[in-house]
């Protein structure tokens, strides 16, 4: 074992010990503690837990790398995965908190006085959460296998074991407090390398300002990056070079999807008051923004570093980290023209190939870079000590575990509460309900672990599904349930079905059904189609509800009641 592995072992074991200790301290004794942490979580604590819940392995490991290769266009993730919190705070969270039940299907079922609506919502919640959680388990396996030299499968099993322990024991209460610890680990792990690199490159300790900083040679970082990119046939980093329509729709689908994801919404049931739900959304976004505004800085630093380090340099002179990452397969060099020099350029650009590459005797791009390397290799590229690298591993694990736990809770709640208690077996005792929630979460963890090891083929595409479907189904149904007293069962159900079918079929057609990008409607890619699905949902709901009877008086009274904060009891299932 080398120095880095020893550090990694120590830090990973230490953080896991903390999570387990927290879980034992925060055991759940009732369904209310299991589902909504007893409804007594402080808004700042809940904000932190929400941030950890929200930021997955993908946010932590992959996002900066994605932006690094997308440049300006990466804004769709940055805006899309933060802007939804404004919608949550203004349009959803306070009213759902006042409504005071445990789950999103609870709200849909009661507001639309319909068991059918509840079941449609449960099915959506299960589908969205399951597809999402499988990716997290995979992330856990990767983090373990890459840094601790254990098998991928062993890594997943260790991860499953840890989540199993604290989720089954503590439910939402255990998950909430471990998520707080996980947030601290992941944000520290993300910021330390970013600060170091920012200081190294532009002499500014704050990465957000460093992004606009000036390099040693006196040019602005971003101007230099634009120039390096175009010199090698890539597109300019800071400007857009695709249509704006798709960018607009993808950003909107991610925002609306965020606001409609059940594992995010349910976090706002855990605070004591309506005013706390609003405040808590603000804190959550603040904690998320710390990472999301650092990511574009890491992206630009890493890209500049990559250009400067490798392009047109002799392979033999590469630093040590280059070799280390070649071994993992995330970095690959193939000397196509046999000159011992690395040529890294855009061989998809015909003008560049004929004008520059061919005259110089280059025979194609020789370097393949996996985008995940931008975060994972950053500490090594910047020559940071072993413990910083170990910290990044622990951070990635914290991000994956916290998100997985939040999703698993939604899955177990959907089964024990929405399906059993509210549908199949209404006379179930509280004790039996709690027991079935624990069994459901245990089974869900094991299934998620299984699929983490044997991922079904569709997993790579699931983000589009999860966000698109949440945007096209839940978001309109909940918003209209609050803001339109006239919205009735018929309108909401037909809207949800139209939104789901349209979005699902469009994504399916272009991902598996042989559709090609030139057939996109208005140039909208499957990732952005949820926005259009949402508009259809709104339109169909509004039209159908006008031609069908108004909702019963008591439902209209519920709507009146959730609009004012006073009288919010603790969240209850009865």
């Amino acid at each position: 074992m080398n120095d880095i592995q020893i550090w990694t072992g120590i830090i990973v074991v230490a953080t896991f010990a903390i999570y387990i200790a927290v879980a034992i301290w925060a055991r759940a004794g009732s369904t209310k503690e299991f589902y909504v942490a007893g409804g007594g979580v402080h808004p700042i604590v809940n904000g932190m837990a929400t941030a950890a819940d929200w930021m997955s392995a993908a946010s932590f490991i992959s996002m900066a790398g994605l932006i690094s290769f997308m440049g300006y266009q990466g804004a769709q993730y940055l805006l899309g995965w933060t802007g939804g919190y404004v919608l949550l705070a203004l349009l959803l969270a306070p009213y759902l908190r006042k409504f005071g039940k445990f789950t999103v299907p609870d709200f849909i079922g009661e507001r639309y006085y319909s068991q059918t609506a509840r079941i449609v919502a449960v099915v959506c919640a299960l589908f969205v959460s399951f597809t999402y959680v499988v990716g997290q388990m995979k992330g856990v396996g990767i983090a373990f296998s890459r840094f601790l030299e254990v098998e991928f499968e062993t890594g997943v099993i260790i991860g499953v074991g840890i989540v199993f322990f604290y989720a089954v024991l503590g439910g939402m209460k255990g998950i909430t407090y471990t998520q707080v610890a996980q947030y601290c680990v992941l944000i520290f792990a993300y910021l330390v390398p970013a600060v170091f690199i920012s200081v190294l490159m532009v002499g500014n300790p704050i990465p957000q300002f460093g992004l606009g900083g000036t390099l040693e040679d006196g040019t602005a970082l971003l101007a230099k990056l634009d120039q390096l990119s175009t010199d090698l046939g890539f597109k300019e980093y800071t400007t857009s070079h695709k249509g704006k329509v798709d960018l607009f729709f993808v950003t909107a689908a991610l925002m609306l999807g965020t606001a409609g994801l059940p594992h995010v919404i349910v976090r706002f049931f855990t605070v004591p008051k309506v005013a706390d739900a609003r405040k808590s959304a603000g804190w959550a976004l603040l904690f998320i923004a710390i990472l999301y505004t650092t990511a574009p800085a890491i992206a630009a630093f890493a890209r500049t570093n990559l250009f400067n380090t490798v392009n047109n340099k002799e392979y033999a002179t590469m630093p040590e980290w280059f070799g280390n990452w070649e071994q993992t397969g995330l970095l690959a060099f193939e000397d196509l023209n046999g000159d011992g020099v690395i040529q890294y350029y855009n061989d998809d650009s015909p003008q560049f190939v004929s004008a520059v590459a061919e005259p110089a005797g280059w025979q194609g791009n020789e370097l393949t870079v996996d985008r995940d390397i931008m975060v994972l290799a950053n500490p090594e590229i910047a020559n940071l000590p072993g413990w910083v690298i170990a910290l990044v591993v622990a951070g990635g694990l914290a991000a994956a575990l916290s998100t997985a736990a939040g999703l698993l809770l939604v899955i177990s709640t959907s089964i024990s509460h929405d399906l059993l208690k509210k549908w199949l077996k209404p006379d179930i005792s509280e004790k039996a309900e709690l027991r079935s929630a624990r069994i459901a979460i245990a089974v869900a963890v094991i299934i998620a672990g299984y699929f983490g090891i044997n991922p079904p083929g569709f997993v790579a595409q699931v983000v589009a599904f999860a966000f698109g479907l949440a945007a096209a189904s839940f978001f309109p149904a909940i918003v209209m349930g609050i803001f339109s007293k006239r919205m009735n069962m018929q309108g909401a159900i037909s809207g949800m079905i139209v939104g789901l079918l349209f979005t699902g079929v469009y994504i399916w057609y272009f991902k598996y059904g042989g559709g090609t990008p030139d057939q996109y409607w208005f140039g909208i890619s499957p990732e952005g189609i949820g926005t259009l699905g949402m508009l259809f949902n709104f339109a169909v709901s509004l039209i159908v509800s006008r031609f069908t009877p108004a909702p019963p008086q008591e439902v209209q009274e519920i709507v009146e009641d959730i609009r004012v904060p006073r009288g919010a009891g603790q969240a209850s299932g009865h």
Partner: protein
Amino acid sequence: MSDKNLQDYWRKNLKYLGILLAIWFIVSYGCGILFADALNKIEIGGFKLGFWFAQQGAIYVFVVLIFVYVRLMNKLDREYDVHED
């Protein structure tokens, strides 16, 4: 609370929502996406302005918007005596 008061409270809430969501839309979809090319002609502190809104600025504004809403609503809740405890 009387129905008229309730309607008043709700109307004011909707007004706040309208204003804040308009700002939300303008900084992200407006400055960050639709008008980004035009704003990129302006450069401040090493950033092209459109790029800055898309990858930094809009996110800061989002955070501020939520806390402004929190303050406005806490005040409104008190004014109409619908606040908790």
